[in-house]
C-alpha cells in the first residue's frame, strides 16, 4: 500500500457524490452574514476625488461616465482590467453578494465600486451603492517589520507604477538597506530595482516598480526581497489586489471586544499604526492597529485569529511624501484576501466574516 493510500486511509467524505451534488443544486444562496442593524454607514472613499464619483453615482450618474470624467477615456483598458481583477477577488468573498461595476486607479489608490445586491430583506437598510476600496496588499513571510504599503503613483493605458514601502519594527537608524526585486523583468524599470531608503522618521524602505498591461492580464512581481544589517530577511511573495471592506461601520460599539483582543494578544501600537479614515461624507474616523507577534511561533493561536492593521487614507508626514495621503495595510504573516476578517475603526471591531 502506498504512503498516499495509507496516509489518507479513512479520510473520505461522508456523503456519496449523488447526495453531495443534490445538496449543492438544491441549496439556497449564502445568506448575508452582516446584520443590517450594524450597517449604518458605507462608501468609504479611498482616494481624493472619489467622493465626487460617489456623489455622482448616488445622483444616478452612469458609472462609466463618472470614471471617464475623472480618469479619462484612455484608461478604459486599465479600468476593464481592474474590474476583472477585482471581480475575481470579490468572487471569493461570500458574505455579500455583489458585482464589481467600476474600478480605477489614480496616484493615491486603486478604487473599485461594487454594487451590493439587496437580499434577505435588507433592501431598505443596506445601501445599494457601496463604494468599496480596493487596496494593494503585500504578501510576505519571515517578516521583521510591522507593516508595508503599496500605492500606485502613476498610471497610463500601458503601465502602472507603484511604490512599495516597508516599515520595520527594528531600529535601523544608520543602516544601509538594499531592496532587491526579482521576478519577471518586464515588471521593473531599469535602474529602479535596487533602491534603499531611510528617512530618520518612520524608518521605511521603498522600492518602485512599473507594471505593464498586456491585454487584460496584469502580472505581479514574483518576489521581492530585502535584507538588512540587523540580520533579518523577508520575502514579499507577491502583490495582490485585496479588497478591504470598510463599508460596514458598526452601530454598536464593540470596544469591549477590542479590549479583550488587546488583553489576549501582544500588540505594538506605534506611530505607524495610528491612522484616520476619511469617509465620503467627510467624517473622520480614528482607528488603531493591533499587530501580532509573528516571530513567536510557539503562540500558534496567533495564526488563527489575527487582526489586520488597515490604514486607509492617513496622512504621511515622513520623508519626501510629506503630507500626502497613503493607503497601508499590515499583515502578520502571508495572507490570502479571504483571511481578512476584521477591521478596527473608532474602537469598533468589525467582524467581516
Amino acid at each position, binding site marked *: 500500500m502506498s504512503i498516499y493510500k495509507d*496516509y489518507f*486511509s479513512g479520510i473520505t467524505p461522508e456523503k456519496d457524490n449523488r447526495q453531495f451534488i443534490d445538496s449543492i*443544486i438544491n441549496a439556497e444562496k449564502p445568506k448575508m452574514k452582516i446584520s443590517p442593524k450594524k450597517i449604518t454607514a458605507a462608501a468609504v472613499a479611498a482616494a481624493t476625488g472619489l467622493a465626487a464619483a460617489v456623489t455622482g453615482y448616488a445622483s444616478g450618474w452612469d458609472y462609466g461616465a463618472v470614471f471617464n470624467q475623472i480618469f479619462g477615456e484612455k484608461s478604459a483598458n486599465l479600468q476593464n482590467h481592474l474590474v476583472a481583477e477585482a471581480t475575481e477577488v470579490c*468572487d471569493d468573498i461570500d458574505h455579500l453578494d455583489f458585482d464589481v461595476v467600476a474600478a480605477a486607479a489614480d496616484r493615491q489608490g486603486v478604487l473599485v465600486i461594487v454594487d451590493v445586491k439587496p437580499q434577505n430583506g435588507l433592501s431598505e437598510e443596506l445601501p445599494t451603492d457601496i463604494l468599496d476600496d480596493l487596496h494593494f496588499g503585500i504578501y510576505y*513571510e519571515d517578516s521583521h517589520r510591522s507593516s508595508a504599503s503599496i500605492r500606485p503613483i502613476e498610471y497610463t493605458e500601458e503601465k502602472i507604477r507603484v511604490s512599495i514601502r516597508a516599515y520595520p519594527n527594528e531600529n535601523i537608524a544608520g543602516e544601509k538597506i538594499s531592496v532587491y526585486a526579482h521576478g519577471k523583468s518586464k515588471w521593473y524599470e531599469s535602474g529602479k530595482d535596487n533602491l534603499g531608503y531611510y528617512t530618520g522618521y518612520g524608518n521605511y524602505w521603498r522600492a518602485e516598480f512599473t507594471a505593464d498591461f498586456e491585454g487584460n492580464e496584469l502580472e505581479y512581481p514574483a518576489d521581492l526581497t530585502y535584507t538588512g544589517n540587523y540580520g533579518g530577511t523577508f*520575502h514579499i*511573495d507577491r502583490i495582490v489586489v485585496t479588497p478591504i471592506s470598510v463599508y460596514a461601520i458598526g452601530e454598536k460599539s464593540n470596544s469591549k471586544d477590542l479590549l479583550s483582543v488587546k488583553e489576549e494578544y501582544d500588540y505594538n501600537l506605534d506611530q505607524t499604526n495610528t491612522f484616520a479614515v476619511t469617509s465620503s461624507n467627510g467624517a473622520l474616523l480614528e482607528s488603531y492597529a493591533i499587530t501580532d507577534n509573528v516571530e513567536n511561533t510557539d503562540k500558534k493561536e496567533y*495564526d488563527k485569529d489575527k487582526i489586520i492593521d488597515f490604514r486607509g487614507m492617513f496622512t504621511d508626514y515622513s520623508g519626501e511624501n510629506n503630507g500626502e495621503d497613503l493607503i497601508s495595510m499590515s499583515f502578520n504573516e502571508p495572507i490570502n484576501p*479571504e483571511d481578512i476578517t476584521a477591521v478596527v475603526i473608532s474602537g469598533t471591531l468589525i467582524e467581516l466574516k
Partner: protein
Amino acid sequence: MTEKELENDVEKYRAMLFRLAYSTTGDLSVCDDIVWEVFMKLYSHKGSFDSENGKKAWLIRLTVNHSHNHTKSRWLRKRTELSETEHSHEIISDDIIALREALKTLKKGYREVIFLHYFEGYTAAEIGEILKISQSAVTTRLQRGRRMLKRFLEE
C-alpha cells in the same frame, strides 16, 4: 455551469479536495463543509476557465482559502474534533498516525504545500502558480516543512 458539468467535476476533484482540506485543517469534521462551499462557488461561478488545469488550480486555491478560514474561526476552535478513526474502517499504522500528527503541527501555509508536492506530485513552480506565491516561497516552505516534520517525528 450545468448539472452534468458539476457531476463530472465532483467525480473528478471532490476526493482530492477533501484530502487537501484535511491536510490543511487537520480536522476531518470540517472537510465536507469546506469542499461543499468550494463546489457551491464552482456551481455559481459565472466565468469560464482557460483550461481544465486552470479550473483545478482555482479549486485548489479556493479550498486552501476556505480551509484557512475554518482553522482560524473562534467558533471552530471551540468545537470538539471528531476522532479520525470514526470514519475509518481500516487499521491505521502508528507511523501514519504519527505522520498525521506531525503534519498538524506545521504552520499554516506549509501543509498545503507539502500535500500538493508530496501527495499530488506538483512541482514547486506549479504550486507557486496555483497558490499565487513565488516559487522560492514554495521551496522554502517545503524545506522548512520537511525539517519540522523530521524534528517532530524524531521526538
